[in-house]
């Protein structure tokens, strides 16, 4: 199995998709071979030298910790621990996080061992060896091993409060299905989904899935931004948070970190959507749910 890369790069860089594809073959994806670190290191584009946020060490430490903490546990549970901490450690803007190259680099050169640890299936398909899908190394924002966690934290945090992220990441279907829906880009909608999970209205992955499907379908005729108006986020707070990276201590391991103080979602807006989604969900068909389970 692949081990921690040695030597580890000092800085997070950008690895273009074409090269990620080239270096991440079936040997790497099945854990039999290490990525060709030296060659890979030559084909990356460096990030700004003076940007402390691009140091590898804080992220690598988090990855080591999560693999240690959840070594005997179901690995999907590690997501809820890592997502808020990865977000708080990196302090990226959305503009920066939309660069897939940095996620490619994290997966291929900084922590391929984590990608395997977290995403290697128990059995292979078609009689082959178990293999991590290539999309976990280089893929869409809701698929790639690191960007899915970062975006989950970004879209589900309530201002500086990461607690909703923990709830959202506790259900794999939220990461797998809900994260890619456009409706989640509306903050009160994301918070309403979390609230319904917390209230026990949608408990299982299937139920959350069904909830998201009806809410998404209804969004073609219902305009949530008017039903539940969000507030403008505070620009300065995000800038300050990013600037504060240089002097910030490592993210806490036991308690939740704090995110940027850019304003919380209006409670009234969340309440309005909780009510609306609750009604929609009543009529929804939940796959595999039988009368006895209700």
């Amino acid at each position, binding site marked *: 199995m692949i081990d921690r890369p040695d030597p580890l790069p000092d800085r997070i860089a950008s690895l273009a998709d074409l090269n990620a594809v080239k270096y991440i073959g079936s040997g790497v994806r099945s854990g039999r071979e290490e990525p060709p670190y030296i060659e890979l290191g030559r*084909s990356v584009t460096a990030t700004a030298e003076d940007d402390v946020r691009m140091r590898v060490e804080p992220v690598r430490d988090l990855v080591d910790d999560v693999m240690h903490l959840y070594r005997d546990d179901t690995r999907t549970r590690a997501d809820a621990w890592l997502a808020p901490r990865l977000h708080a450690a990196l302090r990226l803007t959305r503009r920066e996080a939309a660069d897939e190259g940095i996620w490619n680099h994290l997966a291929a050169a900084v922590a391929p061992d984590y990608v395997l640890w977290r995403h290697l299936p128990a059995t292979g398909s078609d009689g082959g060896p178990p293999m991590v899908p290539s999309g976990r190394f280089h893929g869409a924002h809701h698929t790639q091993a690191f960007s899915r966690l970062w975006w989950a934290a970004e879209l589900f945090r309530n201002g500086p409060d990461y607690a909703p992220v923990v709830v959202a990441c506790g259900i794999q279907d939220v990461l797998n299905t809900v994260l890619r829906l456009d409706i989640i880009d509306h903050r009160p909608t994301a918070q309403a989904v979390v609230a319904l999970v917390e209230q026990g209205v949608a408990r299982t992955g299937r139920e959350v899935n069904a909830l998201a499907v009806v809410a998404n379908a209804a969004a073609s005729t219902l305009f949530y931004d008017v039903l539940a108006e969000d507030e403008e986020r505070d620009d300065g707070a995000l800038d300050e948070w990013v600037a504060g990276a240089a002097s910030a201590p490592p993210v806490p391991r036991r308690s939740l970190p704090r995110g940027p103080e850019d304003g919380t979602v209006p409670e009234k807006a969340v309440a309005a959507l909780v009510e609306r989604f609750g009604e929609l969900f009543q009529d929804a068909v939940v796959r595999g749910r039988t009368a006895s389970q209700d």
Partner: protein
Amino acid sequence: MRVLPYPTPAGKVTFRVTAVKQDQRSLHTSVFSGEERVVALHQVERDDWKSSRIALTATLPMKEIEEGPWSDVAVVAVLTEKATNTRTTAVLRRQGEGGAEWAGRIRLRRADHRSQAELSVTVVATVDGVAGRVIGTSEEKWTVDLTARTPVRRSELQVDEVDFADGPHEWLRAFKDAPWLVETSGDLPTVHVNTGFEGISELLNSGGGPLERGIRDMLAAQIATDVWTAVFHSAVSDLELDADGNPEWPGGWRDAVLNGMLSDVLPGMSGIDALNEIHARRGESSGWNELQPRINYAAARRAKVARNLGTALRVLDMSQRENKA
């Protein structure tokens, strides 16, 4: 126009951008173009701006709306970018008593956007006692381009002339022998043309005589065929599935590519049928090979290979005749 289960006005919703401010400073009106429906935010050549405010005016069929079954009418500008999962809205206000125009401003935070955002207007009202119903959307959308210097609707393709061996993109070094390379992973497909490949830039940018032009157009057609083939494969392989396992239209340039090419790849099928078919064939790995010539045909057609090759051959023929004479 999709069919909604409640009455909607027949009249059109249109809007136009009327002014753009960047960090409190008004930008010249040349940063936006009503004809192209583009706002180009990079014209000022500043990389340190924080936010822009875009003023817009929407025109609604107000006479119809006032006579119809709609109440609590709200007009909202919507700014989205898929790459950054960002969605911003701003409520527009009605201008004057009884007017048909609604105006307002929407904010674009630079930290929330990367390359191209989409701007549209949606009309919302209470219908049959249900609040927040969408009753109309502007058919024409504007593009807010964060990297463009001029407000021109960019084609579905970016061209980047760069030296593969010594240029700024280290990842291109591995391809230093290639004359060009198509990259489809970004927000827009990009052709990297290798200026280190001797003569290629000169040829592509040449005016020259008819013979040179002929060769140039053939080369351009060859590159374009590569591009169309690559973007088609990329668009098909990135398809996402809805809850029932059916492929969804991907949005952005991938949408345009599939819309344009599927009719040549799977002729005689409606758009959504063709999308389902292509997805099924790819997944089952049967019937995919049979499609290759059709994909190639569709790409060559869009690249206008036949016309360019035909013209070049005629020019060659002519020059040979002149040489003999």
